[in-house]
């Protein structure tokens, strides 16, 4: 019996639910709303066999006419054209030149047209600079993106889907691949570790990277450490960095010019690893907000000042352990320093900070929160040579500043 019903469901329904109108209503009521012509039987012999009076009342021939009238794509009188791409066998190179005239959003709709277009558009150099800022993304999106020829990728503020996953084979293939991304902005994207691995594992040529606000465990750190040409690294606001991870990153990435390690929970041992591996190529450094009571101290700053002569921009804000000795270190070392931030370093005596006025290279000094309002006027008088408290934010190794449509100098706007 069960076999029989599987083969002829209509017969089965008509026999068993002869009185039940609801089961058979679908035919006449749903068609005007959802024209699913594929499901609708063409031959009148097939289903109007049973007992349903309502089914009998439908004239199937009429419905066939409707099918002719309301085909979803082709309109009445629309001139039917042959596919010129197929007719003339337009080679992929020409399609590629045609696609080079399209904006990305037009390219995306063109890629949905047919398989040839997708294949050509997928490899198009239109994707060299790709902006996925603040869009919803899944793992599949990321893997597809990694296969394209992208050099500059912005995923800042993207909204990742933490649940949907690609299958194991695609993930493994992505782990083995390589990518040509050089500039990658992941700030505020809040990706899962798996998604970070998809993005970072294939990268070998990164020059600038921002992982602001993401997880930075040892796996991610080992991916980052594969990029020996890294010039600007922004790991601010990350969580989960370990001594091991820091060692991997900073021992292998010897070409860092800008480093932003603010507010990522750096403890004293980690800071020691960072400072031990710093080279004199470093120009901008942000170490603000290390762990309270176990963070940046005077001795570490002294050790670091001996190694980094070329520093121009230094931010040591929010390190409560830093005392007056640091000011002396800064006065004596760092011959090229122009920008200095010591915001909210409450352990420093304003009377000592004032001495920075006579450091010849220094131009900008930010001491938000260190000076009381009553003393501010006096402080400004004594530091007459410096521009005090002019900058609210530090943009060391940040992709953008002031919401400009550039990341590391690459324009993200489409014309």
């Amino acid at each position, binding site marked *: 019996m069960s076999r029989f019903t599987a083969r002829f469901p209509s017969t089965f329904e008509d026999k068993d639910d002869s009185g039940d109108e609801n089961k058979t209503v679908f035919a006449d009521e749903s068609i005007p709303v959802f024209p699913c012509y594929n499901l609708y039987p063409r031959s009148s012999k097939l289903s109007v066999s049973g007992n349903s009076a309502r089914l009998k009342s439908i004239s199937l021939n009429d419905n066939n006419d409707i099918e002719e009238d309301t085909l979803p794509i082709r309109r009445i009188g629309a001139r*039917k054209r042959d596919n010129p791409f197929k007719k*003339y066998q*337009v080679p992929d190179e020409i399609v590629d*030149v045609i696609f080079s*005239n*399209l904006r990305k959003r037009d390219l995306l*709709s*063109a890629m949905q047209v047919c398989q040839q277009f997708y294949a050509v558009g997928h490899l198009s150099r239109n994707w060299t600079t790709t902006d996925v800022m603040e869009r919803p993304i899944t793992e599949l999106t990321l893997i597809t993106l990694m296969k394209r020829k992208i050099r500059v990728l912005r995923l800042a503020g993207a909204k990742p889907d933490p649940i949907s996953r690609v299958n194991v084979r695609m993930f493994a293939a992505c782990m083995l691949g390589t990518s040509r991304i050089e500039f990658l902005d992941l700030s505020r994207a809040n990706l899962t570790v798996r998604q970070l691995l998809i993005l970072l594992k294939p990268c070998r040529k990164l020059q600038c990277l921002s992982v602001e606000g993401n997880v930075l465990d040892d796996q991610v750190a080992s991916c980052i450490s594969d990029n020996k040409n890294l010039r600007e690294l922004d790991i601010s606001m990350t969580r989960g960095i370990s001594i091991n991870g820091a060692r991997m990153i900073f021992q292998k990435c010897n070409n860092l010019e800008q480093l932003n390690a603010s507010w990522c929970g750096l403890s004293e041992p980690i800071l020691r690893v960072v400072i031990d591996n710093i080279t004199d190529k470093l120009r901008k450094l942000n170490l603000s907000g290390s762990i309270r009571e176990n963070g940046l101290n005077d001795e570490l700053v002294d050790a670091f000042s001996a190694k980094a002569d070329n520093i121009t921009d230094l931010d040591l804000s929010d390190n409560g352990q830093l005392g007056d000795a640091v000011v002396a270190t800064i006065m004596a070392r760092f011959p090229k320093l122009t920008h200095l931030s010591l915001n909210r370093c409450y352990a420093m005596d304003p009377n000592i900070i004032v001495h920075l006025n006579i450091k010849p290279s220094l131009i900008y000094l930010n001491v938000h929160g260190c000076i009381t309002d009553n003393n501010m006027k006096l402080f400004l008088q004594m530091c007459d040579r410096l521009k005090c408290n002019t900058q609210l934010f530090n943009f060391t190794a940040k992709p953008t500043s002031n919401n400009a449509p550039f990341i590391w100098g690459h324009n993200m706007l489409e014309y």
Partner: protein
Amino acid sequence: MSVEPEVPIVQVEEVRENPVLYKIISSDNHVFTISEHAVKLSKTLWDLITNLGLTAENALDNPIPVENVNGKNMETIVQFCERHKYDEEEPEYTNYIREFVLPEWDRQLLSIDNEELFQLILATNYLDIQKLMDYCCRVIGDMAKDKTPEELRIIYGIPTDAEDDALERSASDSPGPSG
């Protein structure tokens, strides 16, 4: 009297124009004459001319047959080449995105049927005329601006995968087992 005002114009042209002319025969036996500067825009034709060793003396006696291009397309191409023969060399595109503006004259020239445009592109590809290629592709690309995939399918006449499969199936079924 009426000839006199035309003389200086011709002279100005003569000064700029190289008198060397070449003859081209299209696939349907139309003959076109084209000046040396214009023919240089087509790398294929210019290679052919240098390889054949055509000079100012014997150029008009030895027409060049071009089998792959018909008369209509060749006419468009000759018009285009004559118009752009004194254009300056364009700098190499460093950026992949082509940032040029399509001149009005060329837009008029290329406002033709889809079919003809594709024939023209293939002819241009064969003759290797970079500039005309860029312009044609720009025209086709402009058609796709702000369109959905379904609209693009209608514009270019491309069937969906499902329709394509159905067509192929019907094509393979139609001969029947006996045929």
